[in-house]
């Protein structure tokens, strides 16, 4: 190790390996480097096979400072020899370290949740709230929902396409929703994509059977069908118009159709089977289909969209008067007429069945909600005892309702979740931990995909803007968890 060896020392090894005599090997190596030297003198470059390239490089004269006395001196121009090893040799030499790889260093210091720069609160809030907003949707009356759905779809498309003429009243409603729509622009795009897909699927399923018969009968429906065919081609604007249509159609029907909305998907196949009964019925089917598609899309949209419920509730009221004005502008004014006819038709029994089905489904959903809301869970005794001893005036509850179930996303921690839930305040993670001690053995035991229960705590404990709340939470975190 670390010996200085001459080429003479390895001569016998080379001779053994090559099978040549020692004498030949010696003369070979001597000649080799003689030639190399000559080549360097003559050409300034010598490439030795398997070893590498020796090159003469001319260095210009430069100024320097004598390290000892600080006086300036000039290093004269000279030549030096550089060596670049052959790729294979270089790699072989580096073999002991070849398995190591460059990796990106994180910023200095421990990564604390509260200095996470990439944290986007809006985005996370959107992840958290869906369950809540869906609940709200279901609690509303069906009519409200339809109107609401219609408006949102409407405004969404109009804003994206900005093609259709808007009546002043419409514009008002759009303004209402514009703020949220802009904020969620990204999500909208995604949803439009998915809606597009679902529309395509649904349309192709039913359309093929329905199309022919209707096309012969009524010119107005022809328009509709053709535009629907275009929809399958995936043109976004076409979808927009067809959804527009369905929306216009549903206005006169609202009261009758509304209750059936929550289960649109299940209705479709049944309808398609019973198709050949009567032509009017067929028309109704088509209209219903369009309506269903519109609602399907809108419900999906609403489920993901995060907006204040108050704003939502205002919308339908304003939308109602807008309807007649809009139908005048619309190319499909004739649609409402046949739609109403359909409802007076003999096939009402089917509608009734569907209504019953839908209301049953609705009832079930409500039941689910009820049980979900009623679920409660207890905090860990340690927390409850601590709170009773140190802050009896707060009257900390042992058992509270479960506000929601939270699925832990990849790479998240309790503090991060607390930030998501309590409007950017990470301090309340202690509460989250003590509410989930049945699944978490320690605060760091958190894994992605875990379902955590979020306590429905009173505002006096988890007020995002109260310093006192934060202080108490910090106290818990420090004293009970360290």
């Amino acid at each position, binding site marked *: 190790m670390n010996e200085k060896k001459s080429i003479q020392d390895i001569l016998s090894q080379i001779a053994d390996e090559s099978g040549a005599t020692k004498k030949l090997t010696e003369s070979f*190596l001597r000649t080799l480097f003689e030639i190399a030297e000559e080549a360097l003198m003559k050409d300034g470059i010598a490439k030795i096979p398997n070893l590498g390239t020796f090159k003469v490089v001319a260095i210009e004269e430069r100024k320097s400072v004598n390290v000892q006395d600080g006086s300036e001196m000039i290093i004269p121009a000279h*030549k030096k020899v550089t060596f670049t090893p052959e790729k294979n040799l270089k790699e072989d030499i580096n073999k002991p370290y070849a398995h190591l790889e*460059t990796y990106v260093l994180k910023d200095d210091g421990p990564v604390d949740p509260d200095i996470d720069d990439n944290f986007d609160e809006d985005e996370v809030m959107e992840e958290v709230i869906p369950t809540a907003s869906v609940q709200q949707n279901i609690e509303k009356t069906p009519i409200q929902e339809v109107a609401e759905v219609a408006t949102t779809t409407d405004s969404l498309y109009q804003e994206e396409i900005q093609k259709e003429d808007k009546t002043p009243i419409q514009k008002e409603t759009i303004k209402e929703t514009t703020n949220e729509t802009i904020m969620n622009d990204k999500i909208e795009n995604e949803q439009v994509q998915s809606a597009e897909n679902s529309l395509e699927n649904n349309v192709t399923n039913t359309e093929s059977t329905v199309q022919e018969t209707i096309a012969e009968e009524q010119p107005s429906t022809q328009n509709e069908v053709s535009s629907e065919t275009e929809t399958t081609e995936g043109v976004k604007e076409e979808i927009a118009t067809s959804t527009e249509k369905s929306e216009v159609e549903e206005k006169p029907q609202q009261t009758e159709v509304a209750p059936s909305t929550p289960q649109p998907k299940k209705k479709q196949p049944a309808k398609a089977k019973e198709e050949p009964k009567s032509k009017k019925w067929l028309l109704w089917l088509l209209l219903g289909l369009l309506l269903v598609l519109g609602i399907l899309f809108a419900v999906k949209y609403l489920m993901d969209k995060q907006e204040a419920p108050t704003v939502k509730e205002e919308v339908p009221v304003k939308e109602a008067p807008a309807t007649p004005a809009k139908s005048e502008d619309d190319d499909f004014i004739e649609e409402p007429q046949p739609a109403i006819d359909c409802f007076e038709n003999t096939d009402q029994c089917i509608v009734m069945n569907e209504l019953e089905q839908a209301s049953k489904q609705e009832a079930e959903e409500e039941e689910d909600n009820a049980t979900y809301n009623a679920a409660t869970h207890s905090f860990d005794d340690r927390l409850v005892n601590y709170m009773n001893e140190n802050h009896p005036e707060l009257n900390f509850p042992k058992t509270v309702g479960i506000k929601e179930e939270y699925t832990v996303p990849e790479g998240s921690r309790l503090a991060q979740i607390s930030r998501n839930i309590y409007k950017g305040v990470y301090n309340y993670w202690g509460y989250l931990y003590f509410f989930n001690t049945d699944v978490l053995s320690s605060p760091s035991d958190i894994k992605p995909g875990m379902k955590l229960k979020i306590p429905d705590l009173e505002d006096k404990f988890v007020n995002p803007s109260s310093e006192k709340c934060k202080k108490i939470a910090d106290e818990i975190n420090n004293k009970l968890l360290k």
Partner: protein
Amino acid sequence: MNTKEITSEIRKRLQLDAETTDALFSSFVDCLKEELLNGNSVSIPSFGILEARRKKERISINPVTKQRLLSPPKQSLAFKVSAILKDKLNQ
């Protein structure tokens, strides 16, 4: 002089066939490598010294993305020209 010229020159001078020169070249480099990997330096008289130098790991910064990268330690082959050859070159 490139590799071809050097091999043909050495064959001409020593009157060797291609196979032997190839075998000598490869076995020379193999033995050299072995010594270098053992931590020894190999000196070639009146030409220079070849040695493997260990380089420490270092932090480099990507000038475009400003990412801080930790480059691993490595070993590279270094050559130091002998004083004799250097003098000859600078005459």
